[in-house]
Structure formats: C-alpha cells, structure tokens
C-alpha cells in the first residue's frame, strides 16, 4: 500500500473543501428591541445558533452557494432569507409579531363562550352543568350570565329586553328549529339537548357575526365534540326518570347513543304541585339522541339525530273560567343535522351542512283540538380562506325552508286551517382583520330574501377590538338584525315584513389570572315590530309592522376562582331599561318579561375530604311590570321582586359513581310572575285577578350516575 499517503491527502483535502463561512447578524422585533434566544440556522443543515442577550448571532458553516437562512422564535412569524451564504453577514433582521389567538386581541363584544381552551370562555363545560338550580339544563346555567333575565315560568332565553323568540339556537352552524321541549303555559321548559355532546358553547347577547340571521336579540351556538376520548357506558337513575348512553369508537369513526325516559308522575304523587294546577297526567317523555362522527385525513363528517316524544295533561286555574282549564299536549319531534368540513390546500376550508326537523303537536284545550305540523330545513355552505394569521375571508350562502300547517277543530265540528310556506335565501361575507396583536376588526354583511313577503334585507355588521394592556381590552360592535314574524302571526298574515333591531355595544373586558371582569353597555333600537288589534293573534286580527321600541342597559360580570382555595364564584348584574309598542299594546310600555334589575351569584366549593362539590346559586329579579285594567295607566304596576336560592351537592362515591342532590328555591320564596285579570268586570265594576305563580315553589332532585369505561376513571360529573 505505497499509495496510502495519497488517499490520505485526497481525504484530507476533501475535508478541507468545506471552507468555512461566517453567518452573522442581529435579530430585533418591530420596535428594534433585541430578541434573545431566536433559533437561527441554515435550512436542512446542522449549522446554526441561538441569538444572545443583544440579539446577535454568529456561526460558521461549511455550506456554499444558495441557502435558506431560517430565523424562528416563539410568538413571531418565522423569517426566511434566501441567498448566497457569503452574503449572510451583518444581517439586520426584524421579526414580525405573530398574531396570537391565545393572548392577542379577540372580538368579544356581545359574546360569552364556554369551551375548553378558548381564552374568552367565561364558563367551562363543567360549569354549565354543576350550577345549582340549573338541574342539568344548560339554558338554565346561561341564565346566570348578565344580559339575560330569568323568566321563571318560561325557561327559555330572554336577552336584553328581547322576547324568547328573538334567540336562535344552532348546532354545528345549523339551525335548530325547536330547541326547547314543548310545554303548557306557565310551566317552564328545558333545552332538548344534553350538554355533554357539545365541546363548546358560544352565547352571544348581541352584535354577532353576519353568518347568523333571523334572530333579533341573541344566538346560542353549540358545537358537537369532534372525537370522543374513549368508549364508555353511562347509566343514570333519577327521581324523575332514567337514562342510558353508550359511546363506541372504531378508529376514526365513533358513535354515541343516548336515551332518556322522564316521568314526573312519581314525584308529583310524593310532592304534588298545588299552586293553580292539577296534573291529570304529569310530564312524560322519551328521548333519544345519536351522534356519528367520521374523521378523515383532512375532513370531518358529523351527523346528529334526536327524537323526542312527550305527553302531558294538566288543568290550570283561570280567572275567566269557573273550573280549571284542561290542557293536553302530545309533541313529537325529530331533528337531523349533518355537517361536513374539509380542509383544502392553501388554507381554504369548506363547511357544508343540512338540518331537517319535523315537529308535530296534538293540543287539546278544554274540548277544542289543535293539530300542528312544521317541517323545516336549513341548508348551508361556506368557504373560508385564510390569507395569513392577519386576514381571513368567509363567504357563505344558506337556504331555509319552513312549511307550517295547523288545524283547529272545535267541539261543534267547526274546523279551521291555517299555515304558510316560507323560503328564505341568505348570503353573507365576512372578514377578520388583525392589524396587530392589539387591534382587530370584523367586518361583515348579510343579505336575506324571503319568498313569503318578497322582501329583501341587507344587514351590515362591524366589530372592533382594542387591547389596552396585557389583560384589558375594549370592544365596539354595531349590527342590523332582521327576523321574520313568528309562526303565531305568519300563519294568519303573510303580507308583512321582517322585524328589525339595531345593536350598539361597548364592552370592556379584563382577564386576570383566574379572574374575569366584563362590563358591557348597549343600546338596541327596534323597528317594524308586529302589532295586532285583538287579545291574541287570530284569523280576523289586523296585523301591521307599525310597532317599535328600544332597550338599553349595562351588564356586569365578575368571576374569580383564584382568591379563595377550592372556591369558584361568579356574580352578574344587569340593568335593563326598555319600552316597546308591539303586539296588542295600546302605547309603548315595558313588557312583563323585562325586569329592570337582575342579579345572580353562583358559587361552587370543592370539599376534598368529602369528595364533594357543593354549589349555591342566588337569583334576584326586580318586580316585573303588568297591566292592571282597573288602573287608567298602561303597564304601570309591578309584581314583587323575584328571589330564588338553590343548592346542590355532588358526591363522588368512587371514581365512576356519583350521587347528586339538588333543591331549587330551597327557602321556598313565594314568587309571582304575573297577574291574570278577568275579561269582564265583576258586579262592583272591578276586574278580578289571580296571581300566576310557579306550579310548586321548590323542586327536589336526586340522581345516581354511573359510568363504565375501560380506564375506570371517567364519570358523569360533567353531565350533571
């Protein structure tokens, strides 16, 4: 091997071919401040370093020719320099701040979120269901937020001086046509959906996105869970019924089934409701829900189906009748909702979906019968392009179909049919613009065309948000909102127009560690409200769009789960000033559903030793206006204030078994919702009245919840 030295020389010189070049420079942020610890390297090589305290970097490389220099740093957009390595000396690099969805500015005016990771969440999923007095109804939990008023006898959402019909509910972006169980007058309803199927709840009390329409006051957006964590079976036994649920997972597909039977008869036998009611057959229902999800590489398909069959037979006191008035109801509801989301290349996202609902009621009032049927559907497609973390654009279109028919049959055989068919087209365009981490804007516009009255509407929506510091921010929102008159009116008259509301909102929010403060001032201008000239809307009423009104107020929210260990509480206060001239009002007045002051406190305390969570909620509402026909003034009287103190106790027997107790209105406050006056005065010329009170002051609930899963750890604490 006499040539060995030659090879060595060859090898040596080969190594020498890696001539070393120095790459150097300085990295700063937008305001020329040094960035420490940025990762600077040549793409695809090991050559690189981190910047020092002064933002300087310098490293040697053997690479030659055109290279890509990468500068990456958390919370900044990555920066790339492409060029010959020899030019990479004394570089002055300014990194652009990345838009941070977590700590940056957010568009929050009018919106409350309840979700897992969302920073604007004021409620966590668990809160929704462990709030005392809510009894597992997430709508009842939302009623502890400011901007809502507790209308004890109704159970639906009344937002900022708006009627319950002004709030719409959406699941995965698709409209739910009958979100609440059917019920009798003065018997509160509940939301149809079990909260645990949803991963996020957004509750907007005004100024919401152009994506949503046909709601004058508020939208409630529910998003179903994408992928369940594990297979499990849930069993529940309650004082009012029983339920069973199961989740099965096959790879990327999963199916959750849930069924519940409710019967209030045993409870009513034990603790009968006595205040102005007699149950002939207390509320009884059977409900089923199924959610199927299929996740692909870039797409997600979800399908929700719900079925509900409910029956009740009640007799209620009425000043205009000698005997109690009998009311029978059988409701059948079927709801189907399918959505598909697909992520294309280049940041295009497609969302499509359809919902279909069928709702039939058989109502008996004394001897008369009313049969109603509504078939409604919603088709929607929207496409979103994200240009950068600073700019995105959404364009969408949707189509609503409503076919309603009703047959009234009186004892003497007289029958009367009403109904209507509506087709509503809508399109919307919306853009989120982030000027910086401190300043953002949402701009949108929505147009709608309704075939029922051949009317076209255009609603602009704007919201702005500005961050004043690390924790505080101001938001402003404006929007126009249109909604078709409700079924109760449309079935008699289709020559009307949409009702209109304009929202103006100013919001301040402070997010400290474990502490949230929000204050919001708003003004709502109502126009084109429906008026009619009879007691109730009926076939011979004269309808018009001549009504109007306003609502203004202040909402304050404070939540703290840090100051006292194991204690979490929130306090809400709302001031509401509103008057409207609508329905059969003879002049503008504050309606019965709009108390001036609402206040609530919710507390939750975790007792580690007892493995228990104890909750306490207090709700207060100032007196509600009512009209006394004996007085010359219109709606000048007020009921006494509303008070409710509720307690609950969840005890974990072991990791998978929970015992739950709750008492609604534990102190038995005697609340009065309204007064009903006789249609005609008595012999001495006085209109007599009776108070409309809850069927029972207090309500007791006991439940046992058992989860069976492979990991032996899950439980239904978040179903309670």
């Amino acid at each position: 091997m006499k040539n060995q030295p030659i090879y060595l020389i060859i090898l040596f010189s080969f190594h020498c071919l890696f001539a070393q070049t120095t790459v150097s420079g300085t990295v700063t942020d937008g305001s020329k401040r040094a960035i420490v610890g940025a990762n600077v390297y040549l793409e695809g090589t090991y050559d690189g370093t981190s910047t020092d305290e002064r933002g300087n970097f310098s490293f040697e490389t053997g690479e030659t020719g055109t290279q890509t220099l990468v500068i990456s740093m958390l919370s900044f957009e990555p920066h790339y320099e492409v060029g010959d390595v020899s030019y990479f000396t004394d570089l002055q690099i300014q990194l652009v701040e990345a838009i941070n969805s977590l700590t940056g500015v957010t568009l929050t005016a009018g919106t409350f979120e309840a979700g897992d990771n969302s920073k604007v969440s004021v409620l966590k999923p668990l809160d929704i269901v462990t709030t005392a007095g809510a009894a597992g109804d997430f709508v009842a939990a939302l009623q502890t937020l400011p901007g809502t008023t507790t209308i004890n006898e109704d159970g639906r959402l009344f937002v900022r001086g708006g009627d319950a019909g002004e709030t719409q509910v959406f699941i995965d972006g698709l409209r739910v046509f009958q979100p609440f169980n059917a019920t009798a007058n003065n018997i509160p309803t509940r939301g149809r959906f079990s909260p645990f199927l949803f991963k996020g709840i957004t509750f907007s009390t005004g100024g919401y996105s152009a994506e949503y329409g046909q709601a004058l006051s508020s939208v409630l957006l529910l998003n179903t869970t994408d992928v369940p964590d594990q297979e499990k079976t849930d069993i529940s036994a309650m004082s009012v019924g029983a339920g069973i649920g199961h989740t099965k997972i096959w790879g990327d597909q999963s199916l959750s089934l849930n069924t519940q039977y409710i019967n209030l008869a045993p409870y009513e036998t034990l603790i009968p409701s006595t205040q102005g009611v007699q149950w002939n057959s207390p509320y009884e229902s059977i409900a089923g829900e199924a959610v199927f999800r299929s996740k692909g590489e870039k797409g997600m398909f979800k399908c929700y189906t719900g079925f509900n069959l409910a029956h009740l037979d009640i007799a209620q006191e009425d000043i205009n009748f000698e005997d109690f008035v009998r009311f029978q109801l059988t409701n059948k509801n079927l709801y189907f909702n399918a959505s598909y989301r697909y992520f294309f290349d280049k940041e295009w996202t497609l969302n499509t979906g359809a919902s279909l609902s069928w709702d039939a009621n058989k109502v008996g009032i004394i001897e008369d019968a009313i049969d109603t049927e509504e078939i409604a559907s919603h088709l929607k497609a929207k496409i979103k392009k994200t240009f950068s973390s600073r700019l995105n654009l959404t364009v969408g279109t949707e189509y609503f179909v409503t076919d309603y028919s009703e047959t009234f049959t009186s004892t003497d055989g007289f029958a009367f049919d009403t109904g209507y068919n509506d087709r509503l087209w809508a399109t919307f365009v919306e853009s989120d613009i982030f000027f910086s981490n401190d300043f953002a804007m949402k701009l949108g516009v929505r147009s709608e065309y309704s075939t029922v009255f051949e009317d076209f509407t255009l609603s602009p929506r704007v919201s702005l948000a500005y961050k004043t510091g690390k924790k505080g921010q101001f938001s402003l929102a404006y929007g126009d909102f249109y909604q078709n008159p409700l079924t109760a009116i449309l079935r008699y008259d289709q020559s009307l127009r949409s009702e209109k509301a304009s929202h103006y909102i100013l919001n301040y929010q402070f997010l400290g560690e474990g502490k949230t403060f929000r204050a919001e001032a708003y003004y709502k201008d109502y126009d084109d409200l429906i008026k009619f000239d009879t007691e109730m809307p009926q076939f011979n009423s004269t309808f018009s769009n001549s009504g109007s009104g306003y609502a203004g107020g202040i909402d304050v929210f404070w939540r703290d789960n840090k100051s006292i260990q194991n204690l979490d509480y929130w306090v809400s206060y709302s001031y509401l000033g509103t008057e409207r001239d609508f329905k059969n009002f003879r002049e503008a007045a504050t309606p019965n559903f709009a108390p001036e002051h609402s206040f609530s406190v919710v507390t939750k305390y975790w007792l580690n030793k007892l493995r228990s969570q104890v909750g306490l909620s207090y709700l207060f509402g100032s007196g509600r206006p009512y009209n006394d026909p004996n007085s010359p003034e219109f709606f000048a009287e007020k009921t006494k204030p509303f008070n409710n103190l509720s307690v609950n106790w969840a005890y974990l027997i072991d990791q998978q078994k929970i015992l739950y107790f709750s008492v609604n209105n534990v102190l038995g406050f005697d609340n009065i919702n309204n007064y009903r006056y006789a249609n005609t005065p008595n012999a001495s010329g006085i209109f007599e009245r009776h108070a409309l009170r809850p069927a029972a002051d207090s309500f007791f609930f006991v439940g046992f919840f058992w989860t069976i899963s492979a990991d032996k750890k899950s439980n239904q604490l978040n179903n309670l």
Partner: protein
Amino acid sequence: MKKLIILTLFLTSIASNAQDKYTKGMEKAFQLWSEQKNLDASNLFERIAMAEQNNWLPYYYVALVNTTASFGEKDVEKLTQQLEKAKEFIDIAKRISPDNGEILVMEAMINTAWIAFDGATYGMTLSGKNAQLYQKALELAPANPRVVFSKAEWDMGSARFFGQDTTPYCKDVEKALQLFANFSNDTPYYPSWGKNRAKAVLEQCGE
C-alpha cells in the same frame, strides 16, 4: 481495485462525517440541557430535527425539553408557548414513528403539565385523554419501563385525587424498576429517563 478502495474510504468518510455531525449535535444539545440552557438546547434539538426529518428522536427531545421546563412555570404566556411547541413537535414525531409507546407517554406528559398548571380548567378534559394514552402505550409497549412507570404514577395521582388507596399501584412501580434494570435499546439517544423518579416514588409508597 484502488479506485474501489478510494471510493469505499471516501463513502465511509462521508457517512461517518454525517454520523459524527448527528452525534456531535446531540451530545452538544444534551450538554446545553444539563447546563439548564433550555432554550439553547431546544433550539439545537430543533435544528437537528429539521435536518433529520426521518428521525423521531430530536423531535421527541424538543418536546421533552419544553415540557419539563413547563412544570412549575407560572407565566401563562411562556407556559402556553412551550407546551404548544412541545405538542407541535410530538405530533411530528408521532407521524414519523406511529405506534410508539415513548411518544404517547410524552404526549400524556404535555397534558399533565397543563393539568398541573390549572387543574380546574384542564383536569376534566385532559385526564380522559391521558387515561387513554397510557392505556394505548401499555398495549404497544408492555415491557417499556417508562410506559409502565408513567402509567402507574398517573394512576396514583388520580387515586390520590379521589382519596383512594394508592398502594395497589406500588407493585406497578416495582415492576417498572425491574424493567428499568433490564431495559436496553440499541438506538443511540433512545430515551432513558425515569429510573430515579421511579425509585423516589417507590420510597414514598404506602406512606
């Protein structure tokens, strides 16, 4: 023949050169990490990861450095950045090496860091995920000491939270320690942490 020898030498030279670069880089990164220079260590692991896109280990270590640095971190912004970075890199590692028990344990550790930071917010949602991750890791790698130990430690934590007896899990920790004693993997820089922690946990067992 000569040419062949030269070529062979030349190629092995390049190969060992590349090997050396990886070894040198990893050694340097571990050194930085041991000197508590977490950011520098993370940056270097990241640079190695970017150059070795088929090797899950540097990605794994970016996640490990950022996650361990997050335990005890009080600054929510910093914690979020670190844990999001850890999640981003462990997700890539998972794509490179699917069905890897070590990676699942790492993923669960990121969740645990969130729970440790704010149990009220993340406990309910992430503990279900962790239970499943550990379950799957154990199915994939029943003889991996880190898998056995991490699952036992997690189960102990849950039992403690519910005021239950933690002693049944002590035998799992013991089993993990036996596995630690016999465990070996030929891949250079294969994860090796956990033995001392397991010893410490076992010492406190039953107390």
